[in-house]
């Protein structure tokens, strides 16, 4: 097991380097960031040159990348154009997005898996058809429509929530945005669980467990669910990274100042340091999530552990 983890960690290095290099190149292809810095007028050449020097933009791209990576190992993510350290931006943005992601994941796990179990056990019944239809609707409606609609109804028309989240973004205010962010994945989790449960219901080990006279509750939770969750865990694990990076739409609608907001702002203002820094961390999150998912397999299914 230990060797497996080490091997996986080592594999992450080339992926990490490749991903950051790609991002670095892409941001650089977008043009000269200093050109947009002075608004609708030209920066005077001397100041522009000075700024380029300060941000290291006057060097060739490969050299910029090497310097950047070298600094990264000392925990230096560079400085954004507004004079703030990128690490400072991260320290305010990541906690907010992590909270939002946690809310979304909780929704996925609690609602998604429960609905999946219920429908999986009652295949073909009205409940099953109803939930299936509902998930179809959720999947087909884009997130920004759901988000804006909920914001308008709950926030403006009925006044139940604040349409925008305050800067501190406590859990309470993140419930609706979290639900919006989770909605599509939630529908997939429901469907995945349902199919998986329905498939395993007729398998031998479940029949054995029932024949042993175990209570239904125990059969479902310990035997049926545990095995059926493997595809679901894979999905949720991969989804964590996706949710964190893909929160741009939700964060924009509800004015949440998280990772999505900083990324959006960084791309709009062509702030190389911000974009590359945040994406670097997101790549790490993705890689770690994948690792955790793979390790979880082993926990859920002992056969994988001994293979």
């Amino acid at each position, binding site marked *: 097991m230990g060797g497996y983890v080490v091997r996986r960690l080592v594999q992450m290095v080339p992926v990490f380097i490749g991903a950051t290099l790609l991002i670095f190149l892409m941001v650089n292809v977008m043009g*000269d*960031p*200093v050109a947009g810095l002075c608004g609708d007028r030209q920066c005077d050449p001397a*100041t522009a040159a000075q700024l380029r020097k300060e941000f290291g933009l006057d060097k060739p791209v490969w050299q910029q990348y090497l310097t950047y990576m070298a600094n990264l190992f000392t925990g230096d993510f560079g400085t954004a154009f507004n004079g*703030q350290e990128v690490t400072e931006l991260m320290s305010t943005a990541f906690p907010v997005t992590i909270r939002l992601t946690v809310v979304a994941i909780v929704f996925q796990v609690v609602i998604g898996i429960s609905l999946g179990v219920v429908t999986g056990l009652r295949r073909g019944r009205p409940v099953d058809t109803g939930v299936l239809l509902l998930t179809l609707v959720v999947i087909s409606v884009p997130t920004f429509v759901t988000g804006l609609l909920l914001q308008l109804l709950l926030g403006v028309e009925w006044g139940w929530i604040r*349409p925008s989240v305050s800067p501190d973004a406590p859990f309470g205010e993140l419930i609706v945005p979290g639900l919006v962010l989770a909605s599509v994945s939630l529908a997939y989790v429901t469907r995945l669980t349902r199919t998986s449960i329905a498939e395993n219901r007729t398998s031998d080990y479940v029949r054995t467990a029932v024949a042993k006279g175990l209570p239904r509750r125990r059969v479902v939770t310990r035997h049926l669910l545990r095995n059926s969750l493997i595809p679901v865990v894979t999905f949720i694990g991969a989804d964590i990274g996706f949710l964190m990076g893909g929160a741009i739409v939700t964060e924009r609608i509800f004015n949440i100042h998280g990772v999505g907001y900083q990324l959006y702002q960084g791309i*709009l203002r062509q702030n190389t340091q911000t974009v590359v820094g945040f994406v670097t961390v997101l790549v790490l999150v993705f890689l770690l999530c994948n690792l955790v998912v793979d390790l979880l397999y082993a926990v859920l299914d002992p056969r994988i552990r001994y293979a």
Partner: protein
Amino acid sequence: MRGATHARWAACAMAVALATTACGGGGDTTGAGGAVLSSSWTDPQNPLEPANTNEVQGGKVLNMIFRGLKQYDPRTGEAEDVLAERIETTNSRNYTITVKDGWTFSNGEKVTARSFVDAWNYGASLKNNQKNAYFFGYIAGYDQVHPEQGEQRAATMSGLKVVDERTFTVALSQKFSSFPDTLGYNAFVPLPRAFFDDHAAWLSKPVGNGPYTVQSYTKGSEMQLARWGGYPGEDAARNDGVTLKVYTDNNTAYTDLMAGNLDLVDDVPAQQLKNVRGDLGDRYLNTPAGIIQTLSFPHYDKEWTKAGSVKVRQGLSRAIDRDQITRTIFQGTRTPATDWTSPVLGAEGGYKAGLCGQWCEYDAAAAKKLIAEGGGLPGGQVKITYNADTGSHKLWVDAVCNSINNALDNDRACVGNPIGTFADFRSKSTTQKLSGPFRAGWQMDYPLPQNFLQPLYYTNASSNDGKWSNEEFDKLIDRANAETDVAKAVQTFQQAEEVVRDNMASIPLWYQNGSAGWSDRLSNVALNPFSVPVYNEIKVG
């Protein structure tokens, strides 16, 4: 009916909002608590330094926490003395400035002549990377502290001298009679010692001498400003404070206003313009600001400088139905342009309605004729370049092209040419890499006709991206700048503007309006010529 329901909701939610601000707004020095208003804001792009702030959002804050020698009247745009007791000159080149007595920064430090001289020297110095450094370009010795190339050769500008505590002299490198009127711009405000002594601390909580003081500043999310009790000026704040809240999307800010969580939105999103009258009634303002949108041309390209090009440009201008586009695309938040300045200058200040004359009037037949006479469109087609990332430029560029295509009876006469990001668009337009017309916007720095003409059309001027050059125009600008009589200067500037017109150096499209919407807690809301709310005048409750 719609308005009524919204108002009721706003009132209910307002009660909740009030309750929460009362709980959350601790540490309020004024103690009154209730009369604090909240306003939408966007994260400033640059660190908040007076000479480094070149966009509206940062300028908004500077305008609240600083007062300079002059200030522009919110209604007339006229430059009026604030800290300046006297600005004297005999030759429009050497100025003696006397600072009023009794002014201090909010930390108690006196505002002296040195506060100005140090601030200006800091702003001009190349090593400080200040984006508005060129504002000090008229001052003698600027080329030493901010050379176009190479290292800085002097620490301070030779043209600035402190005479005594309240007096300093400014020597300019050329005659510039409107120089005193430029001093209302944010880059010219005084700075306290704290700015130089502990720069980082100052940036995290700026200290100025204006009607407000910064109470707390959480970068990227919120700035709380409180009324400064010790403010010696006449324009003290009529509310207890302002909380600027950062919004990522002005739609969300508008939604928050409707839900009663926000008091003031100073940029009503385009998508809401249809409902705004019904939603807010007379709590909505839409007035011209000192912003003009034009189509610039690549005058460095031979295709646009050959004989007949002027006629082609004039023809294109006549092919654009400004009235219809401003009405349908912008819902009346733009006003068709009839000159190259802005109505905020006022007739006496240099705005001349109708200066463009027939060349800005839509006439399809005349347009077609002019373009044919001028030898047709270069390459048979014009491509209007714009950036597609912000500002919904695509909408109006498509409409302009549509108008041109209709006028010329040719589906392929004009197409839009989107560029992904603003920075890329800027780097292409400033390095002369465009081959057709491109969008250009100009937001004035100070309400003077000089500011609408010289930076844009003077040979090799800082924002002359199309590299237009005309000897007669340059001469007229020089003459107008040297003119001591204001009325004569304005007249000469207008003559220069006529040269721009006769050559159609750029096509004026429309003047941009500033907009604002507010809750029923507020009254006396107005926008200044820079489309920024006059915060200190707003009354709460």
